[in-house]
């Protein structure tokens, strides 16, 4: 009966407009947050370097080839790059200054050996479990990350030898070895592939192995830093690209393309998300304003109810529950629309060759719950103020 008294005579059109606005806002909010997270996550796990991280070197010009222009990085250059606002971290990539060969040592595959170029980078940039990425003299094997180019070359060699090509998983099972030598000293160390990379052209080894080789097998030539690892801030990757151009630096194109795409899409989604947040706030405000209008239209009813003995709390609860229920329905329907939209968008991405993870993101669900809680709080405050105003 109270519902009939307080909510029957409404301007349904105004309510529908407010509800529709809120529905659109909620749907776009949850969709944009979901895809913003997915864009940030895109490529994670597929590569051993973290997101927005690239390895760069100086472009080799004719003067560089003639030795007139240094191709290595000085401490000052590294420090200048590090101080740029859009840069998160800069670390030198250390290369071997000792002779090392890499080869297979397994009865399952034919012997294969090559001069190797090994590098090491700070483990904080590597997406490898820390307990796997350790080595000390005497350990059973040295963990290595193999450049995918070398893996392709190995398979080509296998094919040419009339043997079956091997998969990623199998190559991780076969025994390999490093041969280190200096003058008459030679040492063979077992090694095993623990991952692959498209981003680095050399075999990556743990820092301790590099240290071991330098101490025991180097001719004393100082290590030059010809490559550095740069980690840019989220959605500012375009600035990193400009900086590389400005300073005559280069990186592997694929890394740049992914970084650039993520930066552009991330920025776009961020813009959509900002618009959605504004839309949700505005539509929430419209609903709240509608609530005020409804209370003001029912001022006589509210006042009379209190005069005949209804507690203000009971009437506040009525308005609060009514609007919280409406927003609850909007949120649920908005979420349903998001799931449908996601189904369509994931299909569009997949058909475009972009295979993003299709699982729902918890953050987007929490955002919805947060928006709901915020609206519930605003509804309660408005209902309380409006009713007590008539008391």
């Amino acid at each position, binding site marked *: *009966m*109270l519902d*009939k*008294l307080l909510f*029957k*005579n409404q301007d349904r059109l105004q309510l529908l407009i407010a509800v529709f606005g809120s529905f659109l806002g909620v749907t776009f909010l949850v969709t944009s947050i979901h895809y913003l997270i997915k864009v940030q996550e895109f490529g994670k796990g597929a590569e051993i370097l973290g997101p927005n991280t690239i390895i760069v070197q100086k472009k080799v010009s004719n003067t560089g080839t003639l030795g007139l222009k240094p191709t290595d990085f000085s401490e000052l250059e590294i420090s200048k790059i590090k101080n740029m606002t859009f840069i998160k971290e800069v670390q030198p990539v250390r290369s071997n200054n000792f002779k090392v060969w890499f080869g297979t040592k397994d009865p399952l595959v034919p012997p294969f050996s090559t001069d190797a170029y090994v590098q090491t980078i700070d483990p904080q940039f590597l997406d490898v479990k820390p307990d796997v990425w350790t080595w000390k003299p005497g350990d059973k094997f040295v963990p290595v990350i193999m450049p995918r180019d070398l893996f392709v070359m190995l398979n080509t060699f296998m094919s040419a030898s009339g043997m079956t090509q091997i998969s990623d998983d199998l190559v991780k099972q076969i025994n390999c070895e490093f041969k280190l030598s200096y003058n008459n000293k030679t040492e063979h160390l077992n090694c095993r592939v623990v991952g692959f990379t498209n981003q680095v052209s050399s075999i990556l080894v743990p820092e301790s192995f590099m240290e071991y080789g330098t101490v025991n097998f180097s001719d004393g030539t100082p290590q030059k830093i010809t490559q550095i690892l740069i980690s840019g801030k989220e959605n500012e990757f375009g600035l990193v690209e400009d900086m590389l151009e400005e300073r005559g630096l280069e990186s592997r194109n694929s890394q740049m393309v992914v970084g650039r795409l993520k930066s552009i899409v991330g920025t776009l989604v961020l813009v959509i998300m900002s618009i959605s947040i504004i839309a949700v706030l505005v539509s929430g405000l419209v609903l709240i304003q509608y609530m005020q209008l409804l209370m003001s239209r029912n001022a006589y*009813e509210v006042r*009379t*109810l*209190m*005069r*005949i*003995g*209804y*507690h*203000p*709390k009971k009437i506040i609860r009525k308005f609060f529950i009514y609007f919280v229920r409406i927003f609850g329905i909007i949120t649920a329907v908005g979420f349903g629309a998001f799931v449908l939209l996601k189904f369509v968008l994931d299909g569009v991405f997949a058909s475009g060759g972009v295979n993003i993870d299709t699982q729902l993101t918890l953050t987007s669900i929490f955002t919805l719950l947060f928006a709901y809680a915020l609206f519930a709080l605003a509804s309660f405050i408005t209902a309380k103020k409006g009713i007590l105003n008539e*008391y």
Partner: protein
Amino acid sequence: MNITLDRLMPEPLASIKHGESSIWGNHVVLEEGKRILLNASSGKGKTTFTTTTLGLRRDYSGSITYGDKNIQAFTADEWTEVRTRQIAVVFQDLQLFPKLSVAENLRLKNSLTDTFSELELKQLLERLEIENKWEQECGLLSMGQQQRVAIVRAMAQPFEWLIMDEPFSHLDVENAKRSMSIINERTLAQNAGFVLTTLGESHGYSFDQELFL
């Protein structure tokens, strides 16, 4: 519960000269269980008396106490208790819900305390000869019929005091008598008192006390 008005002076009436017997500005005690007639001509403040005594307006000097508690200090919980179980009222402008039916208006009030069954509510309407209006919207009734609904609604709660602001102004003599009979029964059954404001008509009833404005 006694209701005490101590030097009560509503602001709109402060500039008017009041007689020595007027309740305005004097010390008046409405003793529990008494039947009181408040007799005054138009514009003297009968409705002001009702709304001020019920705590609906606060623009006055002096004090009003229920028992020994100043009503200015009442909380929302206390007012709700007073309006549900201690003081019933028939407003001069009736304060019914015009879009709701007679039944809904009565149920809204009665559901707070479950004082009457639906059958008892209908019987009261029957005594006032409006039982056939049960399902009709209040806004469509005549003023006299609405007045009778408002009287029945006031009965649908326990009370120590019944305050009525010109409740029979649109009723003929017979219906006023019937209404008064119901009021008399209900107040006697609960040892309650009442205040009836009129323009001079006592409706053939003898009162314990007469107040003037």
